[in-house]
């Protein structure tokens, strides 16, 4: 009774606020409910939400360029894009490509960039093969000067700067980090090598190249660093370091391991380092500015390139532009997918409505028999049904044979009904028809026959009674069936693949092609994301126009 007079929150009998004690009372119930749906929830998260999120991410993800060619990307940042980049860029490219070739990652990058510019794939493949030869020149020259350069132990001691030397841990961990990104794994443990702080100041390129070699040898090849002869790239790096007059000056005061040998090498004549010439010699395409532009354009970790590609556009030096007319395929494919899905939906409505109506108005036993006939296709394999249509519709098939036999069609001009849009629409209408009939049937079942009787008693003819009274009430069923069929159709893959030929395929077939054949997953993901967005927009539009509350799958 006091509850009616007090002003604050309503209290339970023990004085706690009623809301809190209600929450506590319901908590166990909620937890039990959550536990019941947990398996499904986890399944949906793992098998549905996560893949969609991954797809959305993949459609803009472009880290491969930055991960594989980090130094090149860095050097290209200030490049104005007018002529072939300078020596510095090619030197960065040499070290990046050398490591990538060792890790066998350069071909992946080549394939990735080949989506944007054909020819890049072979460019990376040939030059990845040649980087060893480019570096070998310097290895030979240095070994000539002092055979110690051929010894693994000598290099190890020289680069670690002796047992007591101060180490440059930062350089090593940077290189390990770079390798981790490239190999997409995490390395843990000791490399058993630390570049000396002093030597890495004097020979920065060499120290970097040796550090990444050491990390690679230890983690990837799982060999002992001190027993392995360094890569050709390390010799090239030394040659670059020794070119610098400042290096000679610094070496003069250095007394770490191999200091004498280094001083001798610095004084000896080495072949000049001209990476630009070496790369162009390896593949003439390196002097094509367009190729470099592609590398620069796709160097950021995220890109709109896949999406632009998916809507028939491309990035050019002048900005975003439509592709040339003969390269536009996705716009047509999207249009065709939409058009054919609509055709399939309409033919399902036309064929399904009378069936659903009869089923809803027959006595239960006959309706059940009809229901079995409607569900029968579900018991047959999708492939079998689709293949059956192939048999039916082909030019030497059942329907053509019958038409020729009846004399309706001349033997020479048999109808082409398969491997085109017609074949896809026929086969998919057949396959998706149950999805239209079932929601329509369950809605029609709830419309009492007394409405039609009432309409007739009020003076309406059979047609008027149907059209003005029955049909509007069955619209929710049509809506539910249409959404179901349309959304299933727009993403259908297997049937258009089998009976669609070239003119009857859907966007999903193109997506599948990019997933399994061209391996351009980014583009496939972008196309998939657009498809998802189209479906969501249509759903939203349907909700605005018809109202999703009007969709009934039953009851």
């Amino acid at each position: 009774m006091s509850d009616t007079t007090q002003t604050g929150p309503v209290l339970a009998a023990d004085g706690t606020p009623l809301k809190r004690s209600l929450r506590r009372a319901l908590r166990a119930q909620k937890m039990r409910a959550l536990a019941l749906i947990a398996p499904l929830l986890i399944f949906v998260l793992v098998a549905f939400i996560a893949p969609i999120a991954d797809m959305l991410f993949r459609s803009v993800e472009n880290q491969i360029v930055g991960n594989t060619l980090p130094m090149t990307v860095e050097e290209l940042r200030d490049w104005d894009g007018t002529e072939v980049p300078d020596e510095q860029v090619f030197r960065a490219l040499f070290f990046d490509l050398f490591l990538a070739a060792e890790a066998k990652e350069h071909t992946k990058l080549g394939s990735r960039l080949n989506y944007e510019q054909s020819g890049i794939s072979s460019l990376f493949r040939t030059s990845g093969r040649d980087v060893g030869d480019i570096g070998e020149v310097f290895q030979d020259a240095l070994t000539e000067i002092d055979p110690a350069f051929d010894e693994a132990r000598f290099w190890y001691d020289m680069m670690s700067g002796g047992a007591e030397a101060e180490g440059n841990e930062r350089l090593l961990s940077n290189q390990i980090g770079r390798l981790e990104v490239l190999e997409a794994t995490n390395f843990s443990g000791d490399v058993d090598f630390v570049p000396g702080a002093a030597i890495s100041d004097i020979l920065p390129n060499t120290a970097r190249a040796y550090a990444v070699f050491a990390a690679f040898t230890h983690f990837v090849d799982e060999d002992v660093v001190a027993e392995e002869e360094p890569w050709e790239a390390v010799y090239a790096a030394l040659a670059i370091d020794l070119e610098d007059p400042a290096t000679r000056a610094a070496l003069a005061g250095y007394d770490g391991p191999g200091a004498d040998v280094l001083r001798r090498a610095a004084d000896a004549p080495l072949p000049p380092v001209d990476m630009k010439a070496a790369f162009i010699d390896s593949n003439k395409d390196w002097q094509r500015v367009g190729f470099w532009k592609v590398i620069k354009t796709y160097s950021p970790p995220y890109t709109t390139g896949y999406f632009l590609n998916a809507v028939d556009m491309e990035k050019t030096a002048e900005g975003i532009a439509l592709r040339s007319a003969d390269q536009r395929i996705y716009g047509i494919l999207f249009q065709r997918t939409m058009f054919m899905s609509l055709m399939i939906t309409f033919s399902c409505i036309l064929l399904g409505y009378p069936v659903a109506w009869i089923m809803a108005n027959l006595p239960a036993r006959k309706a059940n028999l009809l229901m079995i006939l409607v569900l029968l296709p579900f018991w047959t394999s999708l492939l079998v049904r689709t293949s059956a249509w192939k048999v039916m519709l082909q030019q030497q098939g059942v329907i053509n044979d019958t038409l020729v036999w009846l004399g309706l069609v001349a033997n020479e001009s048999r109808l082409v009904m398969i491997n085109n849009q017609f074949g896809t629409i026929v086969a998919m209408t057949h396959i998706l028809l149950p999805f239209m009939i079932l929601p329509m049937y369950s809605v029609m079942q709830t419309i009492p026959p007394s409405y039609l009787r009432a309409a007739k008693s009020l003076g309406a003819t059979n047609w008027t009674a149907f059209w003005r009274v029955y049909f509007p009430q069955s619209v929710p069923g049509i809506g539910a069936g249409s959404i179901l069929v349309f959304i299933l159709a727009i993403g259908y893959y297997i049937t258009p693949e089998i009976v669609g030929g070239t003119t009857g395929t859907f966007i999903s077939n193109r997506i599948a092609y990019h997933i399994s054949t061209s391996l351009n997953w980014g583009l496939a993901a972008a196309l998939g994301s657009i498809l998802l967005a189209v479906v969501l927009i249509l759903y939203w539009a349907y909700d605005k126009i018809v109202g999703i509350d009007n969709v009934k799958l039953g009851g």
Partner: protein
Amino acid sequence: MADTGNNDAFVAFERVQKSYDGETLVVKDLNLTMPKGEFLTMLGPSGSGKTTCLMMLAGFETATHGEIKLDGVSINNIPPHKRGIGMVFQNYALFPHMTIAENLSFPLEVRKIGRSDREAKVRRALEMVEMGGFGGRRPAQLSGGQQQRVALARALVFEPELVLMDEPLGALDKQLREKMQFEITHLAHELGITTVYVTHDQTEALTMSDRVAVFNDGKIQQIAPPDELYESPQNSFVAQFIGENNTMEGTVKEIKDGLAVVQLDDGGLIDAKPVNVEKAGDRTLISIRPERVEFNCDRLRPGAHTLKAEVAEFIYMGDIFRTRLKVAGRDDFIIKTRNAPDQRRLQPGEQIEIGWLPEDCRALDAP
């Protein structure tokens, strides 16, 4: 049982039979005529054929045999929408996707009546059922009683001469039902429409109708005005179906001066009015209304037969007392007495004598 052959009949069923499966007759040889303006109720238990009769009249079912005439013309082959009969359905059947005004406008539209005429008629019909302000609403926004009124207005808006109602008040609560009963009869008589009303609620049938046709087993058992039906049931089915009734089985001992003396199965003798017993020795079911039983023997005619009874239960029901007695070997004998200041309240266990005026007790056919 039913009246036949009348040239003034507005509605006539002539030897109508109906079978759904070709094996059993749902309606057996139905003959019925209705004058214009009559309010006739078809009353009967479910499965008695009353709704089938209504559906045949509306045109939703075809008669297997016989003829149905409307205003002297056979309508057997006229489709429902051309019969011009208004109908109110059990669950109203208001079109859910139309507003109330659109629902009412529908029969006028299909009759191609002009817009202004239509609007006037719809307004008038809604006002007639006191639903004037509801034209813009949808049926789902109305209460059961309101939907009922709209259904009625829709059946009347195109001014049919005959209106059929199929248990229209079944879904309403008791109070609303009683109010609507009154309103429907009032409206029907005011507008002078001929009404066929189907119900299984006998109170409804008695309060509303000019005449009631009691259906059972595909046949009309009795067709009569309510008072006659109640007070003079023609057979044991009608007696038991209409109102509360005490029955006892026995054998006719003698019939003389329009009075039958019946020997009950336990030996007691009782006076009754012979209705469909003919001679001594016939088995009979005697029927007496609870409110006509007298336990104050001073009020009985001298020499009347009485029965001994023991009070089993006394139930106070407000306006009346309902007392259950043990009589003649049965313990379900009910008497009803008015709650008047001088009325005696019987105590359980009390021994009394009961009797009645012979004309209140009817000796009917044994079932």
